[in-house]
């Protein structure tokens, strides 16, 4: 799992902290909604070492450390179900 406390520079000032928390909420909500929109769609993953794979996105854990995917197209064939470690991924993309 990820760190249990999140990085913050403004803990001394209550008003600043409130503003930072509101910013965090807005950013996080949009990101979580993007994950929802991605469910069931074909997603291309660019991995390290110039590896590119596509798969149907299934789910992510809350810390965004792993993605569960289906029908993973690899150079060695199609993997029915798989978990991708996000630390191995450089970028991913899909169409809306």
């Amino acid at each position, binding site marked *: 799992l990820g760190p249990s406390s999140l990085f913050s520079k*403004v803990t001394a000032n209550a008003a600043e902290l409130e503003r930072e928390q509101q910013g965090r909420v807005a950013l*996080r909500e949009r990101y979580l909604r*993007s994950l929802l929109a991605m469910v069931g769609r074909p997603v291309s993953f660019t991995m390290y070492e110039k590896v590119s794979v596509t798969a149907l996105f299934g789910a992510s854990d809350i810390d965004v450390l792993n993605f569960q995917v289906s029908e993973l197209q690899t150079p060695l064939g199609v993997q029915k179900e798989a978990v991708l470690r996000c630390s191995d991924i450089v970028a991913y993309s899909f*169409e809306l």
Partner: protein
Amino acid sequence: MTAWQKKTPLEWLTYVNKEVGVLAAEKHKYQGWVLTVDPVSANILLAHPLENGKMSISAVLGHAVQDVEILTEADDEMKEKLAHLFMPEEMRRCSQ
């Protein structure tokens, strides 16, 4: 942790609705409008309008982000478009 991962939510918020160029690990380059930055993983979510009217969504993972350069700021029409991309139908109707 990279400099990008260490930024605070308020710093990430300044990138939202801006067109940026992102330099990622292994010299990968991405360009698009910033939809959000996940405050947990620092993943940066970009939208790139396609000619067929669809939207291409890319995410560069926080650990792979090396540099983010702001190119332009979105006009009101683009901001509206970006804000509604992942909103569920019923919320879209409420906000109109």
